[in-house]
């Protein structure tokens, strides 16, 4: 595969990471080398992660294959999946490659995690910090949807604020049509909380997004 991130963008990202990152962040990429249907997506996921690691060495990448004990340990059953810094307690994952428009949200999330900064309005971060239950927030996306990463980043920010309580999962619908069909997804971004307890379509304002999590 040719280089995914061009020279100009590499330079921009280098500066961004230098300015905004505080501590190392680990990306765990899970792939199934036997699965030819998802091969392109898996190759993409590994390569994009490695290219980011080349740009800033505080970004660490580990690749696991289907069947490795880590799949069970981190509860991964779909390939490719990328988990962002799971060992520091965050539950942030991309089910499907962070391709197309999703790229910037992925990068944004890495920098926020690196600062342990939810990047939400202080009142909203505070509300989430007090969350006592576990809430799973899936955001269904397509790589060609320009607004989707906004919804994904909101979910990821919530997962940073409510560390270990909110699980944010960005589900790429092209690669996971069975999941998308399960919730009748026909427009993205679509949020699905706790496997269907609450469904909303479109990018939600931050206040509503946070209140929806508290309600779930």
């Amino acid at each position: 595969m040719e280089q995914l991130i061009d020279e100009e963008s590499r330079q921009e990202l280098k500066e961004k990471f230098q300015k905004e990152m505080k501590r190392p962040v680990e990306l765990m990429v899970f792939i199934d080398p036997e699965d030819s249907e998802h091969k392109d997506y898996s190759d993409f996921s590994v390569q994009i992660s490695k290219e980011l690691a080349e740009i800033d060495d505080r970004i660490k990448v580990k690749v696991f294959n289907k069947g490795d004990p880590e799949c069970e340990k981190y509860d991964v059953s779909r390939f490719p999946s990328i988990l962002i810094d799971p060992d520091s307690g965050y539950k942030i994952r991309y089910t499907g490659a962070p391709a197309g428009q999703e790229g910037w949200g992925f990068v944004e999330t890495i920098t926020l995690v690196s600062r342990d900064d939810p990047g939400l309005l202080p009142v909203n971060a505070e509300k989430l910090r007090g969350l006592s239950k576990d809430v799973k927030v899936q955001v269904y996306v397509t790589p060609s949807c320009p607004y989707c990463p906004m919804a994904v980043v909101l979910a990821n920010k919530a997962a940073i604020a409510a560390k270990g309580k909110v699980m944010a999962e960005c589900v790429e619908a092209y690669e996971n049509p069975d999941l998308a069909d399960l919730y009748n997804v026909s427009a993205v971004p679509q949020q699905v909380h706790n496997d269907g307890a609450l469904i909303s379509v479109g990018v939600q304002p931050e206040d509503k997004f946070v209140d929806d999590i508290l309600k779930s």
Partner: protein
Amino acid sequence: MESYDTVIIGAGPAGLNAAIYAVRAGLSAIVLDGKTAGGLVAESPAIENYLGFSSIDGMKLSAKFKTHAQHYVQIKEIEPVTDIIRKEDVFLVKTERGEYSAKTIILATGSEHRHLGIPGEEEFSGRGVSYCSTCDGFFFRNKEVLVVGGGNTAVGDAIYLKGVGCNVRLVHRRGSLRAEKALQDKMFSMDIPVMWDSELVEIYGDSKVKGVRVRNKKTGEISDVAVDGIFISIGEDPNNDLAKNLGVKLADDGYVIIDRFSRTNVPGVYAAGDLTGGVKQIIVAASEGAVAALSAYEDINNPYWKKDEGSVEGFEI
């Protein structure tokens, strides 16, 4: 509070190009966008009329715009501007996250998709009704979809959806299309049928869209058409709330009136791009942004409104 020579609202082609010209002229500037940089360009499946690119998808072009502008200026995304207030010689720009002060304001807030306003449209929004073919087209592959409209965007959407694998029909309320000829030729060569002189009167379904009721405007006949998806591309309405609050003069259709220097009637407030109506094309938005920035530069150094206190001399419509 952060202060700037100019605060640019909206990071579409108009706002981003304004930023490049403003900073290169020597002004301090910032761009604020309620969503993400790139504006509506990012939704376009294929752009074939922007100089320098024979064909480029909107996502790539908007990313290039953003990267280029970021060489010069800070772009704050997901920071909608809620109000702008004039305080003596400066403007206070309020967002959810803070306030900025500015000597001049460049409004480049673009427009929003227009809705049909028929029964079922809001109810089924996101459950079969969509305003963004690139976002949602994938979910309708091998399914029946209608595209409503007759302009460039509608025809472009129909072509895109057919390419994704949808069974597409176009519904248009007139007997001919407004879209440019090159697009029409492409659509007809792909065997996309058109329902002429027809308008949707209702969208119905259960948990998702099942069909639409269509009225033939010539015969008055009403028929039911079973469809899975409806993509509405009937044009846009301007995002003019901020302009209105500032006392900027609007045309009857809500678009901001500017002169050939991109000045509005309010001294120190400029507007550019789709917000000003007209042909609504990327290249035009970018050029109006450039003009707005250069006028802001000129007026900061040499305010026309101070030459003759109070009047807006030089303002031509």
